């Protein structure tokens, strides 16, 4: 009888621990898989038109052109620069290694400027627009709304202005 009680307790404890671990660590795993598929670090990747062939990330928005940068600031700081258009929605979103956004910058607020520059560094630096990442690795995603076919090439020029400098 004692053996059954111990087994039951062991069963419940292991099951609860397993489900907690799965829920806690799946986002890390998803990020690790995404990062593994994209070998470039600290480099912008500009996606072309979003259509049914885009099957890397679920629920892609076909009205957007996306640019992504998988960053790693474990050894070096990075500075990202770019310009967001005034006429249509665009944003830069910073995600940690749990795929959670921790900062979003967009062009909709009246006090925002089109040009942006962020220093991403673990260490405190004065005099620069600095973003201290929650984790050493993560993703930055730029979203540009493509209003119509004629604005497609204009957005492409904005994508090409994105830059990342490793310090």
């Amino acid at each position, binding site marked *: 009888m004692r053996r059954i009680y111990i087994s039951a307790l062991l069963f419940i404890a292991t099951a609860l621990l397993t489900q907690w671990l799965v829920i806690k660590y*799946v986002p890390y795993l998803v990020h690790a898989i995404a990062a593994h598929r994209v070998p470039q670090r600290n480099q912008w990747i500009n996606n072309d038109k979003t259509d049914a062939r885009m*099957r890397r990330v679920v*629920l892609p928005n076909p009205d957007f052109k996306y640019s992504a940068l998988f960053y790693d600031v474990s050894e070096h700081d990075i500075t990202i620069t770019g310009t967001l258009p005034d006429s249509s929605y665009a944003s830069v979103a910073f995600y940690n290694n*749990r795929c959670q956004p921790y900062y979003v910058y967009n062009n909709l607020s009246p006090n925002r400027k089109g040009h942006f520059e962020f220093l991403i560094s673990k260490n405190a630096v004065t005099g620069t627009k600095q973003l201290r990442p929650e984790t050493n690795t993560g993703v930055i995603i730029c979203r540009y709304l493509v209003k*119509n076919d004629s604005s497609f090439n204009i957005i492409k020029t904005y994508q090409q202005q994105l830059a990342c400098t490793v310090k």
Partner: protein
Amino acid sequence: MAILLSLCLMSRKLWIIVPLLAVITGFGIAAWRIARIDKSPAYRVYGSWRGTTNLALNQDDLVTTQVTLFALFALPSQEAVYLFAYADEKNKRLNGGRSYTIEGNIHNIKAEYWSITAYGRDLYLIPNQANRYSFNRENLKTDSLGNFKIVMSNKPADGNWLPVQKGKKFELVLRLYDSDKDFMEHLDKAALPVIKRI
């Protein structure tokens, strides 16, 4: 389960089988909890649509995992709100074998940019020859009062035609970017587009 339990009790290798079964059960519980995204306290129903207007930058572990798996790299609610539709107004699952309309008025959706996109059950865009996946307030054809009707069908239709795949279930996402604050606070009373089976 009863058979497995009996096997466990009979087996001399109880110390291997019990933890193994427990791990499998743990995975099952986790999958069950993750899949119940619509049971989240933050989840609300807004007519044909459902979702949360309260997706914050730092969520608890369960919500983080749900968002990671079902809407990877989503934006927080202060930036964008995602509402989902899986069924028509009679609560029947959306199916590409049937035709539907989405009817609404662009003036009733108070957001700087919004769109309605169709996705397959795999959460990817539905391939189609017209390369049409969504409608937004810029490309939607409306009457002079701003009323619109989108036809979702596996056969071409006049006007705003959103292709879906025959015999395959699908879902819709209504995205709202930079929404009016009052509109978001009273989203339950907003006249959001209605999905009707033809």
